[in-house]
């Protein structure tokens, strides 16, 4: 009974699948505010004096680490079942593991080979064929930038590759639109989230998923309890539920990687173990964010 207010950046299909289950199980009604993670954080900051939200659900964990004043540490029930490498912070609980991948529409490649690596994306032959969100505006696009910078020997080497990629990119404001463009044949390749790509694959679109050879980010996304949450108990129940095996099963069905060791990935995806990981360093990404975004903004003007 009662209610819980959830701020979230999660795609609509997760809300549609998970929230009714929670409501049914607990009798608690859920108010959802869906927006980009930056916007949500702006709200939380603005409301710090009189919090409206109880839970921040499914954002990049560093956002939470960066603003510890806004949140309260909570150890969710079932934390002991977390798969290896998922438990990264006391402040938040992982919800899913997000895998960055490429979505490719082979029919639109005009006979060019399917790119298999980050470096291939920098090849000038893919000029204006690759869809990406803007790293300054989209959280996942920023992770992709940081991933590339971490995937090579030095940050400098990473920037060199990324500069080549960026000059091939066609930028859009939202990450959700990236697989859409590729699926619709507007562009041939997209840098996106694995689960977003999977929805188009499962929907029957002319697309496939490709994992970059140098490795990619397997980054947990986070849930956290808002400090001073008006419905703290319901909030905890919400987080507990999202970590439960039952909920994680749904996560897997939706194409995201579950964070529990006892829940299998979606059979349509290759097993997580077979995905080459760069060992994504979220802390570094968060610490250097302002510098990297400004560098990115300047580079955009040069190469685009």
């Amino acid at each position: 009974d009662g209610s819980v207010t959830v701020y979230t950046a999660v795609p609509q299909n997760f809300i549609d699948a998970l929230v009714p289950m929670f409501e049914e199980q607990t009798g608690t009604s859920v108010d959802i505010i869906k927006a980009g993670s930056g916007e949500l954080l702006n709200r939380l900051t603005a409301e710090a004096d009189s919090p409206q939200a109880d839970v921040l659900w499914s954002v990049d964990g560093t956002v939470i680490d960066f603003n510890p004043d806004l949140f309260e540490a909570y150890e969710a029930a079932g934390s002991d079942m977390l798969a290896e490498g998922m438990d990264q912070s006391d402040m938040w609980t992982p919800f899913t593991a997000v895998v960055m991948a490429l979505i490719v529409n082979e029919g639109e490649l005009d006979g060019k080979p399917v790119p298999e690596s980050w470096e291939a994306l920098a090849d000038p032959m893919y000029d204006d064929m690759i869809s990406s969100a803007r790293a300054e505006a989209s959280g996942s696009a920023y992770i992709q930038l940081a991933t590339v910078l971490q995937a090579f020997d030095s940050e400098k080497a990473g920037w060199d590759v990324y500069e080549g990629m960026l000059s091939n990119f066609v930028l859009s404001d939202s990450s959700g639109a990236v697989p859409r463009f590729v699926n619709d044949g507007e562009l041939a390749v997209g840098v996106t989230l694995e689960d977003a790509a999977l929805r188009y694959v499962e929907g029957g679109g002319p697309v496939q998923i490709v994992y970059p050879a140098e490795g990619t980010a397997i980054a947990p996304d986070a849930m956290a309890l808002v400090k001073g949450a008006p419905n703290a108990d319901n909030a905890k129940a919400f987080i507990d539920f999202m970590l439960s095996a039952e909920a994680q099963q749904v996560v897997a069905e939706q194409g995201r990687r579950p964070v529990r060791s006892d829940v299998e990935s979606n059979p349509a995806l290759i097993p997580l173990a077979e995905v080459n990981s760069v060992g994504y360093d979220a802390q570094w990404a968060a610490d250097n964010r302002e510098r990297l975004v400004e560098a990115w903004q300047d580079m955009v003007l040069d190469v685009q």
Partner: protein
Amino acid sequence: MALARLRRRLDFWGGATLVIAVILAVLLILPILRVLLLSFVDADTGGFTLGNYVEVFTRNYYVNGLKNTLFVGLMGTLGACLLGIPLAFFTARFHIRGRAWISTLAILVLVAPPFIGAYAWIMMLGSNGFITNFLESLGISIPTIYGAHGIILVFTLKFFPFVFLMTQTALNAVNKSFEDAAENLGCTPWQRFRQITLPLVFPAISTGAIICFVLAIADFGTPAILGRGFRTLSTIAFAAYRSELGGLPTMAVTVSIIMMAISMLALLAQRRILARRRYASSLTNLPVRQKLTGWRNVAVHLSCHATVLIAMLPTLVVVYTSFLKTNGPVFVGGYGLESYARIWRTAPEAITNSFVFSIAAVILITVFSALISYIIVRRETAASGAFDFLMMVPYLVPGVVMAIGFVTTFRSGVFSGFSVGALLILLYFIRRLPYGVRSTTSSLRQIKPSMEEAAVNLGAPPLMAFLKVTVPLIVPGLVVGSLMGFITAINELSGTLIIYSSGTITMPVQIYLAVLDGEFGLAAALSTLLLLCTGACVYVVFRFADNRESTFV
């Protein structure tokens, strides 16, 4: 004696003036001032700085955006004029079959839901768009819709109705004798048009053009979707606001203030130019429409109908798309109602909210329009002039600015305590109030003051005279103004996006989110629904307004 004078001042209208002044100060002036202040705040230290402006005018990233904004704004306006003026001239001077139909379509183009139209253009003219593919199969290859030229094309087709409707109204009111006199003095028809007609309707053209320009530079959806690498101030401001750094949105606000300043400068420039060129029109000696024959007739008909049909295309594509069969986000071929079914699962709340907020706002708009119009038209106090001026402000202030102002003003401090729903209602109220006031004011100006004086003379106290005589007479103006307020309130996106919260999502926001998620089917279905409501209102406006076309601009 002094007390008596005070009592005389504070009759019903004195009181109403006071209340309205307070409301406008709190809901309009204060939020804008707060935003203005915010643009002088250092995001890190919270102290005063000019640094935000310095950054905008020195960093290439922003300067480029500024240039781009001016470029697409001006070119889009130019395009709108090139389409709108000939169309207006043809429909005003020649017998065109389906004239009402042309106006109706033009108006529907104006009130179509925001944001989604640009996506429809991609479906038609994108790299894989059906028109692109069709032309390709004929061996014609055209540049894609992306980039500055695409934005300009969309602006042209989206905003030309403003120029069209304003110019048409003006052309219809040009005293016929002027054109006769020119002919009598030796002008051929084309000379007559260039030397007499065009200069006479220039004020209307420029007003339409200014509206285009102001809306074009504030437009966010079109450059966001079609711009790709091409950034304008509006997309920069949004990106800044959404950026994950949190903290104060000082850069977003600074960029928005600059957009506002550009609009204001454009408007002031236009007013200066027009100051010496206001020509009273004749309502008795009206021009007659000429019947064309032969190929001219065919060409004129074709160009008129084609223009509005092309402008209407994106809306048609959206409606069509909403009936496509989907599997998840993918269109799988064939038709189905899945998208509508999904509305009932995901968006019933958005639909209810949209109606509740808009209707509540419109009730406020109606009441205050009546009062404010009366004060502007009938009461010769300093307040009348001030209200009249203030009613222009909401046209110029982008929704983002107003909303950020609302958040900073009403989420904390003296004025906190409004629920989010109430804030949205107030936001819609203050942003759309000018529609009501403008329409009611023009209604009221046609009613001679002697009407109310007669009522007073017959024994009715001022308030009674207002209610029994004035209000019934301005009903058409009120209805039209309120419906315009409703149409624009229920389509409001940019401000809502910043304020909305738990349980207060609206249809446009839902559409926006669906588009961001690539859920085009859902977005199309919701847009169709919104279009239906809007269309119904337009129909009612048509039934009430005397000069229906000009009501919409």
